């Protein structure tokens, strides 16, 4: 079990930190609304008055929606840019401009236009996460070994075939590594959207505790967010490994 042995140091460190945290809160007499102890957070996680699963589900749907949207739009735009120089000249400056906007600042506008609900939160996540996909797709489509393209030329293959059989598979590792970034961005977007205006979701839970000073619940929500975030990220990594086992990307 070398894998288990490999994770042992980090698990041990984590456990040690929890114990130290618990002890510090007790010894120093830190008040709960400032920094709740791990045990208090655990109690909040078990509290029956908060529908954790339902909140986590809402946030998960938003994250997955944002991820899929960002992935689809990002890949499509990347292909458009690599396909034609004209499209590239038309799209790139515009996309760069959109990317320089602080996307979080657009969140209230989305809510204004689209009202409450999961859709605006998905859109915010997608807006934050789509740009790296565009760039990596376009780069992956153009960074092709000249000799591979010669293969296409030797057989007079039409442009779309060269894209389908050579350029797009070649871009796969690039796209996959961008999608990992997008998975993280989708989490940020969903939570920010819920902060701004929402009645459900883990971000909403955190905002709601501000009034009641119920900090243990806020921490519990953070635990849930990291669980959901890790699950989404892990799913992306696994899916990538399954779809394209040859495309070994780092971290």
């Amino acid at each position, binding site marked *: 079990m070398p894998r288990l042995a490999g994770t042992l140091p980090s698990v041990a460190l984590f456990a040690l930190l929890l114990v130290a945290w618990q002890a510090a809160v007790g010894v120093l007499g830190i008040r709960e609304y400032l920094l709740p102890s791990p045990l208090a957070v655990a109690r909040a996680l078990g509290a029956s008055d908060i529908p954790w699963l339902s909140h986590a589900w809402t946030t998960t749907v938003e994250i997955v929606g944002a991820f899929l949207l960002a992935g689809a739009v990002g890949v499509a735009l990347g292909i458009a840019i690599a396909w034609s120089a004209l499209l590239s000249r038309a799209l790139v400056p515009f996309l760069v401009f959109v990317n320089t906007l602080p996307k979080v600042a657009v969140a209230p506008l989305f809510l204004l236009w689209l009202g409450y609900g999961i859709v605006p939160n998905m859109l915010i996540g997608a807006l934050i996460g789509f740009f790296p996909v565009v760039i990596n797709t376009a780069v992956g489509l153009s960074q092709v*070994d000249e*000799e*591979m393209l*010669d*293969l*296409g*030329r*030797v*057989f*007079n*293959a039409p442009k779309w*075939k*060269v894209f389908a*059989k*050579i350029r797009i*598979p*070649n871009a*796969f590792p690039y796209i996959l590594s961008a999608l990992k970034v997008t998975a993280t961005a989708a989490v940020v977007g969903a939570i920010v959207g819920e902060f701004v205006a929402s009645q459900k979701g883990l971000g909403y839970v955190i905002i709601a505790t501000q009034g009641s000073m119920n900090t243990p619940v806020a921490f519990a929500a953070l635990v849930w967010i990291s669980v959901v975030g890790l699950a989404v990220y892990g799913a992306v990594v696994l899916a990538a490994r399954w779809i*394209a*086992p*040859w*495309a070994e990307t780092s971290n």
Partner: protein
Amino acid sequence: MGDFITLAGVGMTYATASGPVEALRDITLGVRRGELVALVGPSGCGKSTLLRIVAGLRRATLGVVTVDGRPVSRPIPEVGMVFQAPVLLKWRRVLDNVLLPAELAGRDPSAHRGRAHALLELVGLGEFAAKYPTELSGGMQQRASLCRALLLDPPLLLMDEPFGALDAMTRDEMNLELLRVWGEARTGNGARKTILFVTHSISEAVFLADRVVVMTPRPGRIAKVLDVPLPRPRTVETRATADFGALSLKIYEALIAR
């Protein structure tokens, strides 16, 4: 009958960031239909460049190239190209790499599966059809790329050191297989393929070729063209004959004469 491939006064100068690089100068050569011509010359003398020009993948900066009577201005059809590097697509299994030409040329790949398998058997890769290229050694990848070039049974083969990464034994075996594929046993007009074969090995050149073209260091010019009148079919014993040795020596002398 006119030559199948003609090169007349062909020159090639690459424009690079650090200035022009003259790769080829005044290459004039004819290759008959069904002929197997080997190209030898020092590294960097423009052999790969020459193959690309004949294939229509690069435009010569000077001179005229024709294949089958037509000037070459874009990639020519019905050519089997073996690049110096294997250039396998790492996301495709070996069999699917071999089938790539059928897909790119818009033919039905499933109709070529049998042939693809047979070719892989021929080069000793029958058991590796379902592997990914990264699971193969360099020499195995080269053999797979040879199968890919042969898939559509093209009448013209342009081969750039196809056996460079093989051990001596496998290389000799592959040479014999290549002669079979070429159609050494067949005679008559159009029975044999036309092959332009780049190699660094003098003995490989002599063993395979009807004629050996010796090139000078860069800029590559033709130093000498030697006929190889050794009888066919050639066998393992051919390499042990006195004529074989004498021809090899001649080529060696042409290569080192500057």
